[in-house]
């Protein structure tokens, strides 16, 4: 009985904390950023934080990067949910806390992958803060409604979390 209880405790604690730590480790994150920006001379400065979203348990891994000219920027790695599956994406953010780029890194479902369209994701470029109304601020994408609504609602939360982490004032 005691053994079973302790085992259950350990298993549940492990499950609870393990996910965020292996979510987009440094090497994978750097590769994703270089590919997305088509720039080779980028170095990873530090992992700014592994955190959970506000009011959520989603992993959000945030790194700072540096270009050769000394320019710093950030990239947040997180995921959102489509109808049945999670999809991973990266939000690249400049020091003014504006979105520079959003890229879907892994889309798992058979339907809804349309949100990975480079053109559709360009709508988030320049976003800083505030509610994004799907269909009004972000154009609809047929066949991917749930995923499109999901990422449109989550990016503002990602940005809020990032801002709170980097600039608590």
């Amino acid at each position: 009985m005691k053994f079973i209880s302790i085992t259950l405790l350990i298993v549940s604690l492990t499950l609870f904390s393990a996910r965020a730590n292996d979510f987009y480790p440094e090497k994978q994150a750097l590769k994703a950023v270089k590919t997305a920006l088509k720039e080779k001379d980028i170095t990873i400065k530090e992992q700014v934080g592994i955190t959970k979203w506000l009011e959520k348990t989603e992993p959000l891994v945030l790194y700072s990067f540096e270009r050769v000219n000394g320019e710093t920027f950030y990239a947040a790695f997180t995921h959102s949910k489509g109808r049945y599956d999670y999809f991973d994406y990266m939000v690249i953010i400049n020091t003014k806390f504006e979105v520079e780029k959003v890229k879907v890194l892994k889309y798992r479902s058979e339907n809804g992958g349309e949100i990975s369209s480079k053109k559709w994701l360009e709508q988030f470029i320049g976003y800083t803060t505030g509610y994004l109304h799907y269909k009004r601020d972000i154009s609809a994408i047929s066949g991917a409604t749930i995923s499109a609504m999901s990422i449109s609602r989550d990016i503002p939360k990602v940005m809020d979390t990032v801002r709170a982490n980097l600039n608590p004032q």
Partner: protein
Amino acid sequence: MIQKTILAFALLFMGMGIYAQEKKTNNAPLNAAERLLASDSKLTIGGYAQIDYNQPIVEGEYSNGKLDVHRLVLLFGYQFSEKTKFLTEIEVEHVKEIYVEQAFINHEVKPWLNFRGGLMLVPMGITNEYHEPTTFNGVERPNLDSKIVPTTWREIGAGFTGRIDNASLKYQAYVMNGFNGYNDGGTFRGTDGYRKGRQKGAESFMSSPTLATKFDYYGIPGLKLGLSTYNGKSQSSLYHGLDKDDAAGEAKADSSVIGISMLGLDARYSKGGFEAKAQFNLAKNSNTAEYNELTGKDLGSEMLGWYVEAGYDLLFNSDNDQRLVPFVRYEKYNTHSKTEGGLAQNKAYDRTDITIGAGWWLAQGAVLKADYQMFGNELTDSKGQFNLGIGIWF
């Protein structure tokens, strides 16, 4: 006492885990199965259902209404690895008929290159692939997607699909089994073309494969454009066991198949509360004179149809997921747009349907529908039908 305390803590933590999962989606609430299965689970459970009430209205006649659990479909997906997935949909039609609607394996080599094989939907037009009742206006699917595109059209096959994100393009290309056009008699007919020839993967037989392709382009904000093609011959049981030297037998078997070339163009547009859809299908059938002569059927050599539909979400500016969409759909389809071999065109197959109604989406996955349909053709008086429906998708 200590044991009980540890057990209580263990259960508490597990409960927290489940609670955490419950709060995980910000917009789509988790259903019971998802909550239990949690995000790291490899198993997905979902489903959709369509419950209809159809009341024909014929002048000068009494008509009984029909109440039907038209479709109840259970979806199961299993993620074997990050790259390999199996997906199936088990359909119960009219409460008592069981079908497997889809059952395929998908292996992702790259996002732009996936291998897919099994029982799959033929990618033609909009509704055959997106047929869940919360995805279309009206209680019933468009009639074009019944009489010319025989939804839900699925066959066993294999091929490739993928997305090219930089070009906002999705493609599908499958080699698939074709319709059963002849099995101790012909199955195709003038009124609904290929509908009775669907094999649905149930002990289906093949005498020659067909090719189905679809390209979707979504690089213009709010717009999605589709181009579908389907090419091949129908299948015939007469080839099976036929002696290769039997010229007469071969000639008869050749008469029992038709060649099919179908083209589909579709568009979906949404801007603000406005939404519109349109679809065009053209199907050319070769060898229909011989086929009709052999089988006594009246299959047309060309079927042509289209529909346009527009609606407006009156709750567009609300902050919740509810939608209230009045809509109108105009359909024109002719399964005898051309005939050959002396077969007279049946004007009753030259049809015009108008559907006017509204859908109230209580939530993203639940809709109540009401509409009135007018079915007209070039030969007889038009008929009306009032429909009420409940649609869900989770």
